[in-house]
C-alpha cells in the first residue's frame, strides 16, 4: 500500500513535470520575440502578445478553410502554421514600420507608449473583426495520446514540445550560423558600426520583428490547438508571463528566453500542483523578483552574453 502511494506521488510529479515543460515551451516561444526585439532596439514591444493572438486566429481560420477544401488534417495544420507565421511576420514588419521606425531617434518612453498604443489598437482590431466570442479549434486533430497510470501524455503535448525544439534549433542556426544572424548580432551590439560595415540596420530590425512575431504566431496556434480555443484578448496574460520569462532569463539573450520560459512554466505548474492554483502567479513573480534581486541582469544576462541578439 505504501509502495503504491509512493508511485502515485511519483506519477503525479512526472505528470506535472510534463505539464510544466509544455507550458514553458509556449512561454519560451513568445519570450523569444520580446528578447530579440529588446536586444536589437532596446524596446519592450508590448504589442508582441497581440501577434500571438493574431497567429492563433489566423491558424483557426486557415485550418477550417483548408479542411473545407478537403485537405488532410495534418496538411491543413502544416500549411496553416506556415501561412500564419508568415502573416504575423508581415504584420509585425508593418507595425514596426508604422509605430516604431518613425520614433527611432525619439526617447525610449515615446516608443514604449507607441508600443502600448499599438497593443490596444491590435487587440481592439481583433475584437472588431473577429468578434468577442471565443473561436473553437477543431479538436479532432488534437485528440489521442499515451497513458501510463496517472501519467498521460497527449500527442498535442509531444507536438508542442517537438515544434518548440525545432523552431529553437532553427533560430539558433539562423542567429549563429548565417549572415542574417551575424548582421542581427552586429546591429544589437553597435548600430553605427554595423551600418559602417555595410548592414542596413532598418532591414535587420524589420527582420528581427518578423522572426519574433513568426514564433509568437506558432505559439498562438499551438495554444489554440492544445487548449481548444482562441479569443481576441488571449495575448495579454501570456504576453506578460513571457515578458517576465524574458526578463528572468536576461532580456536580450536567446538562451535566457528559453530558460526563463521553462522556469516560469514549471514554477506555475508546480505551485498550482502542490500548493494551490490561486498562488501560481504569485510564485512565478516571486521567483522573478528573487532572481532579479541577486542577478539584476537575469540568469543569462549581459556579463556572460555572447548569445545576445
Amino acid at each position: 500500500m505504501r509502495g503504491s502511494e509512493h508511485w502515485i506521488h511519483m506519477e503525479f510529479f512526472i505528470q506535472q513535470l510534463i505539464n510544466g515543460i509544455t507550458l514553458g515551451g509556449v512561454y519560451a516561444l513568445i519570450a523569444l520575440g520580446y528578447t530579440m526585439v529588446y536586444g536589437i532596439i532596446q524596446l519592450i514591444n508590448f504589442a508582441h502578445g497581440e501577434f500571438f493572438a493574431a497567429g492563433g486566429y489566423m491558424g483557426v481560420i486557415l485550418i477550417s478553410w483548408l479542411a473545407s477544401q478537403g485537405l488532410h488534417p495534418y496538411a491543413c495544420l502544416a500549411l496553416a502554421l506556415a501561412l500564419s507565421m508568415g502573416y504575423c511576420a508581415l504584420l509585425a514588419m508593418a507595425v514596426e514600420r508604422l509605430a516604431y521606425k518613425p520614433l527611432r531617434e525619439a526617447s525610449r518612453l515615446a516608443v514604449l507608449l507607441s508600443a502600448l498604443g499599438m497593443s490596444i489598437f491590435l487587440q481592439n482590431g481583433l475584437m472588431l473583426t473577429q468578434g468577442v466570442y471565443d473561436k473553437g479549434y477543431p479538436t479532432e486533430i488534437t485528440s489521442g495520446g499515451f497513458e501510463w497510470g496517472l501519467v498521460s501524455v497527449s500527442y498535442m503535448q509531444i507536438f508542442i514540445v517537438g515544434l518548440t525544439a525545432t523552431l529553437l534549433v532553427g533560430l539558433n542556426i539562423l542567429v549563429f550560423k548565417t549572415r542574417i544572424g551575424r548582421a542581427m548580432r552586429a546591429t544589437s551590439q553597435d548600430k553605427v558600426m554595423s551600418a559602417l560595415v555595410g548592414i542596413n540596420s532598418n532591414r535587420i530590425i524589420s527582420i528581427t520583428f518578423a522572426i519574433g512575431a513568426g514564433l509568437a504566431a506558432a505559439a498562438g496556434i499551438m495554444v489554440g490547438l492544445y487548449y481548444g480555443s482562441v479569443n481576441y484578448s488571449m495575448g495579454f496574460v501570456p504576453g506578460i508571463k513571457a515578458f517576465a520569462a524574458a526578463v528572468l532569463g536576461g532580456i536580450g539573450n536567446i538562451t535566457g528566453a528559453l530558460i526563463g520560459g521553462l522556469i516560469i512554466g514549471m514554477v506555475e505548474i508546480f505551485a498550482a500542483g502542490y500548493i494551490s492554483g490561486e498562488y501560481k502567479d504569485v510564485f512565478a513573480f516571486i521567483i522573478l523578483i528573487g532572481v532579479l534581486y541577486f542577478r539584476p541582469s537575469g540568469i543569462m544576462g549581459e556579463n556572460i552574453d555572447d548569445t545576445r541578439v
Partner: protein
Amino acid sequence: MKRLLALIAALAVMTLVLTGCGEEEKAGKVLRIGTMSPLTGPYAADGNDIRQGAEIAVEVMKEQGGVEGYTDIQLFSQDTACDPKQAVAAANKLINEKVTAVVGAYCSSSTIPSSETLAEENIVMLTPASTSPQVTERGLPYMFRTCGRDDHQAPAAVKFMKDVADVKTLFIVDDKTTYSQGLADGVSIAAKAAGIEVLEHDHVNQGDKDYSAVLTKVKAANPDMFYISLQNSATGALMVIQARRMGINATFMGQDAVYHPNLIEIGKNAAEGMFCTFGAIDKDAPAFKNFLSKYKAIANNEPGAYSAYSFDSTMAYMLAVKAAGSTDPAKVRAELMKLDFVGASKNVVYDEKGDSGSNYTVYQIKDGKFVPYWNSLTGDKY
C-alpha cells in the same frame, strides 16, 4: 484680467442655461435607458448578449407603439469590462447621459459598486445576470434582479448531486470572482452538510488557459463529480476539453456562467454529458419563441445565456414607466412591484427585496444541446 474673468463667467452661465433649455426640451420626449455589461475583456461575449437583449426589447416595444408620452426610446451602452472601477465610471457616464434606468451589470463585482453610485441619483437598476446574494441584500430601493440567486443555486446543485447523481466525493474549482468563488463556497458548505465529501476546493486565475496542474490534481483525487465554477463559458470549455484529454472520468457540473452555447461550440465532444444549473426557461413557450425569432432577425445571431433576462429586465422597466406615466423612480418602483408579466425567461414578478425568484433547473448537454434534466423546485426529472 477682471474683464476676462467676467467673460469666462458669462460664457459658463450661458452654457448652463443653454444645455438646461436643451435638456428640458428633450426630457419630455425621449426615454433614456442605459446598459452596463463587459463589452471588452474575457466576458465580452456575455456582455454583448446583455446589450443585444436590451436592444431587442426596445425594438419590440417600439413596434408595439412605444411608451406613451415619449417620442423615442434610446439605449446608451457602457462597457464595464467586469472591472469594479470601470463599472463605477460607466455608471457615472450613464448618469451624465441622463438615463433613468440601467440594465446591468454582468459580474456581481461590477454590479454591487456601480449600484451604489446609481442609487445616489435614484436611478433604477435591473440586473439580468448578477446572482450574488449581496446584490439585493443591501436594502437599495431601486435595485431589481431578474435572474436567480446563488444561495438558491448552490443548494439546488447540491440537492441534484445528492439525490439524483448519487455523488459521494466532490472536487470544486473556481476562478476567484465575487460570483464564482461565492457560489463555489456555497456549494462546498452545502455539500458538506449533505454528507458529500469535498476532496478539495482549488482555484485558478482569470485569464488562464492552462489548467493542467489543477486537472492533474483532479485526476489523482478521482472524484465522483467535478464542479466547475468559472466566470465564463469559454474558459469552462477549455477546462472540460483539457480534463477529458487528461482522462478524468468524473461527471462534470457547471453553473449559470458556463451555461452558454459557447460551451458546446468550443467544448464539442468534451462537453457532452456535462450538467449545468440555470434558470428554467421554457423554450416552447410562445413568449420565448416570439423573443427568439425577433432576436435572430434583429441581432442576426443566437441569443446567449443572459439575453432573455436582459430582454425581460428592459421590458419590465418600460412597462413600469408606461403604467406610471413618468420616470419618477418612486412611481416606477411601485409599478415594478405590481408587475406580473410573461417574459422570455419566466413569469416576471419582483418581491420586496427586488428579487424575482429562482427556478434553477439542471440541464444536461446531449447531442450538442442543453436539455432540461431535473427541476430543483419539484425535485422531478423532465
